[in-house]
């Protein structure tokens, strides 16, 4: 009990609180640790002279284990993201890089969160996983950062450059909050990201102290809410577009692993609780036999609903609360090191007889009165006020053989972990990397929803032809704008940059022959130009011959209402549930709306939506049905190479 003067804190918090007394003998390791943390170079013995600012938040030093932890973490993220993006680019060359980044970062964040959630119960089931708990906050912050990449790219891709504020668009572009299948999935991901942000932002002992431990713990327990939100986000989003059974199975397995590990840990603790003796001797309750407690370790029992850690050390037995004041770590899974109960999570220490941290630290846990009768430990389950000194119960000589070895107990500040821990952790890390790479391969392979479309982003061409508004802005060109040697009639839908229609850009030139610059967007036979503003000029050289309108009769079609700009190639995929919110924003900005159907004479076609008079169909008629299977009845026309369907709100319905 002579080494009560230091804290074996092995977490990554920046509170470098040092001892104010001498650290003789075996304290060298701890003193050296603090020396590294504080970044100064005192000679031993350490005294308060060297650490006048011992109660201060200071940057923590790195050690070998921390470096390896972060190297493996970063390597895993790079391996996963790189494998996914490289393979996806190879298998789906038309997929846009933004889509691949969004999917790589999002799935990586989900995988990391799954691992984060598994570590806790794994450590409860097998203490050899404790090394994974050390620096778990780095894993958590990495999860948030990958989620942030996913969220930022998604917000820019789907909700920026439109007629609404991006966050307003996020919450209002799909208002089907009352229907489960159509429920907007992006707000779910946003809320999950906010939770991960709060956890990452408060991942520091300053917040633990200033929010108070119960509030801090409650805040960090929200990780389970975030995980549930992400499961819903994936199920209602990606899995409704990429309908691969394998992908759904992979998500289900990750959920099952998290759930089963938590259940297993809970069942184990419940079993241990039930195994606790029930004999009662007035105020004292029979807790366990002395021999059932390993030397320098504890046995955790649950008496009257209170979890109590009974430690055996130096021929004595003491009982104190199982809950560490730092992050509610399980003290009963810790060890007596240098006379102090040492929490396995982050190395917080308490004196076993008083439950108080050695000075100058102030944390205290409750203690319990103990006595030993016939080699059995009896405990008074009524907790004494935290920090109350209770003399330890002495063990008859045969049971008082304390081992000073720390070889089997994980200590984060040492340069190497115990061999058994090292083997187990290496196996886990290797398995995780293999599983991650396999998931990246699987995810990249099963994606199917990429169209053969083009958006020549950054490539400006010159176009010329006649501007029409029938009723959407189109350019009818008879030149070889696409480099064809043979002149032919081409009809291009026209749009402005961002999520805006082109009406305002062609207002002054309707019916005129013009020349302007723009970027080509194309998907199969459908073509569109994103006009470069202020480049339109009258041009008398082109004089296209227009085709007359051809009525194709009444049709009853099944398909999906899309915004033509994204659908034709600006985004890929530019349709389906994952794109619904973006489509709604584009349509609100004046991008022509169309029905994408594969039922018209068995050929995939795009039919622009108009009302019965031929004017653009009011958005209210279809905006809540965008991106989902619909049935549209109407009169179909072909005009200047484009197809139109004249319909109305009452002739559009959602298909089951």
């Amino acid at each position, binding site marked *: 009990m002579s080494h009560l003067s230091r804290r074996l804190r092995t977490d990554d918090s*920046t*509170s470098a*609180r040092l001892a104010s007394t001498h650290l003789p003998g075996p304290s060298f390791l701890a003193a050296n640790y603090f020396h590294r943390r504080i970044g100064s170079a005192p000679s031993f013995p350490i005294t308060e002279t060297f650490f006048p*600012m011992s*109660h*201060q*938040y*200071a*940057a923590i030093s790195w050690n070998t284990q921390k470096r390896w932890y972060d190297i493996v973490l970063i390597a895993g993220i790079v391996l996963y993201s790189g494998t996914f993006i490289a393979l996806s680019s190879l298998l789906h060359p038309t997929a846009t890089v933004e889509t691949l980044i969004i999917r790589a970062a999002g799935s990586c964040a989900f995988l990391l969160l799954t691992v984060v959630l598994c570590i806790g119960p794994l450590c409860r089931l097998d203490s050899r996983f404790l090394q994974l708990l050390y620096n778990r906050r780095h894993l958590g912050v990495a999860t948030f950062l990958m989620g942030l990449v996913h969220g930022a790219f998604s917000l820019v891709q789907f909700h920026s450059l439109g007629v609404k*504020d991006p*966050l*307003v668009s996020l*919450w*209002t572009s799909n*208002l089907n909050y009352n229907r489960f299948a159509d429920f907007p999935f992006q707000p779910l991901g946003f809320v999950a990201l906010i939770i991960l*942000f*709060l956890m*990452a*932002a*408060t991942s*520091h002992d*300053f*917040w633990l*102290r*200033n*929010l108070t431990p119960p509030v801090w713990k409650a805040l960090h327990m929200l990780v389970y809410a975030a995980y549930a939100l992400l499961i819903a986000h994936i199920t209602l989003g990606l899995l409704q577009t990429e309908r691969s059974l394998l992908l759904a199975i992979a998500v289900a397995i990750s959920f099952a692993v998290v759930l089963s590990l938590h259940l297993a840990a809970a069942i184990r603790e419940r079993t241990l609780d039930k195994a606790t003796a029930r004999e009662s001797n007035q105020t004292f309750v029979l807790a366990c036999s002395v021999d059932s407690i390993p030397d320098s370790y504890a046995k955790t029992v649950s008496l009257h609903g209170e979890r109590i850690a009974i430690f055996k050390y130096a021929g004595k037995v003491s009982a104190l609360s199982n809950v560490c004041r730092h992050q509610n770590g399980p003290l009963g899974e810790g060890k007596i090191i240098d006379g102090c109960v040492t929490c396995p999570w982050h190395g917080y220490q308490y004196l076993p007889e008083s439950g108080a941290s050695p000075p100058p630290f102030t944390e205290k846990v409750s203690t319990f009165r103990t006595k030993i009768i016939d080699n059995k430990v009896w405990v008074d389950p009524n907790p004494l006020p935290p920090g109350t000194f209770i003399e330890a119960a002495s063990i008859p000589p045969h049971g008082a053989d304390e081992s000073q070895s720390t070889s089997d107990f994980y200590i984060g500040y040492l340069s190497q972990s115990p061999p058994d821990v090292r083997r187990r952790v290496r196996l886990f890390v290797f398995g995780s990397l293999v599983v991650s790479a396999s998931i990246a391969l699987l995810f990249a392979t099963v994606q199917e929803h990429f169209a053969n479309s083009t958006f020549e982003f950054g490539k400006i061409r010159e176009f010329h032809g006649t501007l029409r508004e029938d009723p959407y802005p189109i350019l009818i060109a008879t030149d070889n704008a696409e480099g064809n040697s043979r002149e032919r009639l081409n009809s291009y839908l026209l749009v402005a940059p961002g999520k805006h229609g082109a009406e305002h850009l062609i207002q002054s030139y309707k019916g005129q022959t013009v020349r302007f610059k723009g970027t080509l967007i194309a998907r199969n036979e459908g073509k569109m130009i994103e006009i470069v503003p202020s480049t339109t000029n009258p041009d008398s050289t082109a004089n296209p011959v227009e085709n007359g309108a051809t009525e194709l009769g009444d049709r009853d079609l099944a398909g999906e209402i899309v915004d033509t700009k994204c659908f034709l190639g600006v985004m890929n995929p530019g349709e389906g549930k994952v794109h619904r919110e973006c489509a709604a924003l584009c349509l609100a900005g004046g991008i022509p709306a169309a029905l994408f159907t594969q039922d018209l004479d068995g050929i995939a076609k795009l039919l622009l939506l108009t009302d019965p008079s031929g004017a653009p169909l009011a958005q209210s008629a279809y905006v809540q049905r965008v991106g989902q299977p619909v049935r549209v009845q109407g009169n179909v026309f072909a005009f200047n190479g484009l197809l139109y369907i004249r319909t109305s709100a009452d002739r559009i319905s959602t298909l089951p």
Partner: protein
Amino acid sequence: MAEQIFTIVVYIFYAYVSFGLLFAIAFAWRGVQKVDRQAAGSGFGFRCLILPGTIAFWPLLLRRWLHSHQ
């Protein structure tokens, strides 16, 4: 109606974050050592680390900072 409500909520959120950002800079510079004595003399890195959380929890810290003056 729903869109208007969401719009109002989002702009309140922007206002909260904007004020939080301004407060966080002032707090990390002058306030943190008054609220938490352990932060006295802390380095630039520590003050940067607490910025995001301060933006999120500025009402709590503002109250403590004000109480520290009393």
